[in-house]
């Protein structure tokens, strides 16, 4: 087998040195009754052309060359060629976790840069080295808040990504924490009055997402004032961080967490992505996951290493801030390269393009007689009212090589027939026109 670097002769030599007659003897410590007698029922090993053939056939069974107007937590932005060139360097992608800092400075410095970029984007003081994704970043943030103030109730806006909220529920189901939700207003923003009713001195944290699942931007300063007055923490989730190219960062939040997939991580049918969590300085020792810190070596040179490990599972075990070990380091590297390429001007310009595309689409929908479900400010996603229920809609879109949006009825029964659409800088005017035309045509 081509991945095994030993010849039959070498195996014989080695067995001889060990004092074994056969390789089977090496497994004598496994009781015979549980040792497998038959080969596994798997097809024989394949050559590269055959493996390629298999996956090409699978790729052909998926949509291809289609303009996709889906967002809903996974965003298509242009990945510069530099990105793959850098992350394909084997010293990055075949490397282990940087526990031996002297031979891992590449990984460590890149993570330090990632942590810095997340702080600069979000307005927070400290950020970790990554979490699995945006959805798991939510329970990790909530658990941080609970550790901070020991209160037992969490209030989450219903406009937070539904699958994030499902994951929060899964994680907290055995923790004796009450999970409540507040509705969204006609604007699409979290309903501030309903929130006021829910607040009390047993609320640990309030969770909102901005832009939220409907693409609507939340009024963070106002929410923060409300939440802090009640002595609770404000957690702001961000699923589309390209928005931070032009949106005011949620600087009043206590914890900002979410999904950085937009920054150069392929959409890849849902993963691997890259979660992030950032917070104010006072919460640093409660952060989950890995942290890279700056230090010096024996000769006084600047270097980086993993630090504050007493928070983590390998030291603190059942008392750790999280059970997370392997995280999403290579995806965090993609983010760091992406943001280095686009930089200060590029991220802003990309965000302006996204805003412009979605506003154009909205105008076209309005001209065709359709309306947006929500009136609030939005970035690159919007919900168009009542156009989702038309017969064979996706088939008609497919004919034009278009993948349409998400029917909100999937998660919000009262919004069935409303369609969530995303317009990034990759959306062409022509395809947007076609999309509007097909969605709004009668019959």
């Amino acid at each position: 087998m081509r991945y095994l670097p030993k010849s039959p002769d070498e195996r014989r030599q080695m067995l001889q040195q060990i004092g074994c007659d056969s390789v089977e003897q090496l497994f004598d410590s496994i009781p015979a009754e549980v040792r497998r007698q038959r080969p596994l029922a798997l097809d024989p090993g394949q050559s590269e052309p055959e493996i390629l053939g298999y996956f090409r056939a699978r790729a052909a069974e998926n949509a291809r060359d289609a303009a996709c107007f889906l967002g809903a937590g996974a965003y298509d932005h242009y990945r510069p060629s530099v990105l793959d060139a850098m992350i394909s360097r084997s010293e990055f992608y075949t490397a282990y976790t940087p526990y031996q800092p002297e031979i891992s400075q590449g990984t460590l410095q890149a993570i330090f840069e990632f942590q810095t970029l997340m702080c600069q984007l979000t307005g927070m003081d400290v950020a970790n080295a990554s979490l699995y994704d945006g959805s798991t970043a939510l329970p990790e943030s909530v658990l941080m808040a609970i550790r901070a103030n020991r209160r037992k109730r969490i209030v989450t806006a219903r406009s937070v990504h539904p699958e994030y909220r499902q994951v929060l529920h899964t994680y907290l189901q055995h923790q004796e924490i009450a999970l409540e939700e507040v509705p969204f207003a006609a604007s699409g923003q979290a309903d501030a009055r309903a929130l006021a009713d829910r607040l009390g001195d047993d609320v640990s944290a309030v969770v909102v997402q901005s832009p939220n699942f409907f693409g609507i931007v939340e009024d963070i300063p106002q929410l923060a004032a409300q939440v802090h007055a009640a002595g609770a923490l404000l957690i702001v989730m961000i699923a589309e961080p390209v928005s931070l190219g032009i949106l005011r960062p949620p600087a009043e939040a206590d914890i900002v967490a979410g999904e950085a997939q937009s920054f150069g991580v392929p959409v890849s049918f849902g993963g691997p992505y890259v979660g992030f969590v950032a917070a104010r300085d006072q919460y640093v020792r409660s952060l989950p996951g890995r942290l890279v810190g700056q230090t010096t070596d024996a000769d006084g040179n600047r270097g980086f290493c993993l630090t504050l490990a007493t928070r983590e599972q390998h030291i603190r075990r059942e008392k750790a801030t999280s059970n997370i070990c392997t995280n999403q380091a290579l995806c965090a590297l993609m983010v760091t390269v992406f943001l280095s390429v686009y930089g200060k001007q590029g991220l802003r310009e990309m965000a302006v393009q996204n805003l412009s595309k979605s506003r154009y689409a909205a105008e076209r929908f309005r001209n065709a007689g359709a309306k947006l479900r929500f009136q609030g400010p939005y970035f690159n996603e919007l919900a168009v009212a009542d156009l989702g229920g038309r017969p064979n809609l996706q088939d008609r879109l497919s004919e034009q090589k278009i993948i349409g949006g998400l029917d909100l009825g999937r998660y919000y029964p009262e919004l069935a027939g409303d369609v969530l659409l995303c317009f990034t800088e990759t959306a062409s005017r022509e395809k947007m026109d076609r999309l509007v035309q097909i969605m709004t045509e009668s019959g």
Partner: protein
Amino acid sequence: MADTDIKKARPHVSQNEGLIFELSSPGKVAYQLPPLDVRAQDPVQALGREYVREELAGFPEVSEIEVVRHFTRLSTWNYGVDTGAYLLGSCTMKYNPKINEVVARLDGISNAHPCQPEPLAQGCLRILHDLSKALVEITGMDSVTLQPAAGAHGEMTGLLLVRAYHQSRGKPRKKVLIPDSAHGTNPASAALVGYDTGSVPSNPEGMVDLAKLDSLMDEEVGALMLTNPNTLGVFERDIVEIGRIVHSRGGLLYMDGANMNALVGVSRPGDFGVDVLHLNLHKTFSTPHGGGGPGAGPVAVKKILEPFLPVPLVREAADGTLAFDFDRPQSIGRVRAFCGNFGVLVRALAYILANGAEGLRQTTEDAVLNSVYLRKLLQDAYELPYSAPTLHECVFSDKRQARRGVHTGDIAKRLIDYGFHPYTVSFPLIVPGALMIEPTESESKQELDLLADALLSIAREAEQEPETVLTAPHSTRLRRLDEVQAARRPILRWKPPA
């Protein structure tokens, strides 16, 4: 300093490189976006001033070549599997096949959207389906979820399943038992699920003490969390009896699959009494470690736990079409958005396709052969605290070297000078001063002989010139880093100079 003994490595000039922010200068660009084909919006007009940020202070402004040189230089400071052997116990740092990288990037796969209508995602669903089938066959279980993003995530998922099972039978139970040799994620995951942990001591052979297990196992214990082979590399000889004890009190047997590299094709957890286990695709199944992820931690279960699996599962209809099944009333819920670390799953499936049954078995045989061979070469110079036969990894202690003041951490640092990545230091906790070594099947006899030479040479150095070892590494860009200072005065981000 006996540098003439170092055969595998020599020092080499490497480039310095500051932080990307330190290279920044206003007006430098590395990007160009296509021109807008619609009217440009002014954010303040479109959103209102209160929603718009000031500039991205401190964000990089560099050119393309600077980005390329920056990350290229950083990469040259790293060591990877493609550079040379990693000996990290229970990490299974094996070769990452390059065809896996090609197929993960195919058009139609790397750009598939997770919310694509199912008729437009049949290829992705087929990949999930085929991988699930293969993993079920390899583990001897009945069903699998591919959602968890890593081993620890899988552990949490598995324990949630255990708890849901017990809850459905009337009593969730209160705790899980974990051997004292276990990885830290085990108790951390148990805590998340609301279970207390009880520690099961190891016997003098390094295996689970059956008598102690028998006395600890009662109807408050939801599960025994076992790594098999354990973190000493030893197969639990009494595994069938262990399963019987646990099952006799209504408990479940959870297996941490981190050490599956000793079992694939040779023994199946489902055949030795395991009810639920997680796998680490970034260990056993060759997906790249990436400097700390992404990985994937699928969880395989016996039928009794299937109703509780996370939603959604992939189901095949009579006509062969595939769909996500969300109608699972007893499910523990989602453990993450979307279906899993799909790009990692693709790579694992490619690895399984490349190997087939015979390749997988040969892989396991070579992994064990390599480790036992290494053990033989080293056992005269390094203390072996447990004499039980080991499989794919083994654990030495620094007891002999410690007499000269040299500890496992020092030996690890000196091994860097010899051109190797260190083994796992100071774990498992039941071996004081542990050196946990797992070569994997990816090492040739030459590399193993060089490794043995290196460790034997370091043992001699510890005897004759301990200072050399204590102040290692000598040949790296940076000498030993002050990790105490890093924790005492944490600097966790760059800030612009005042």
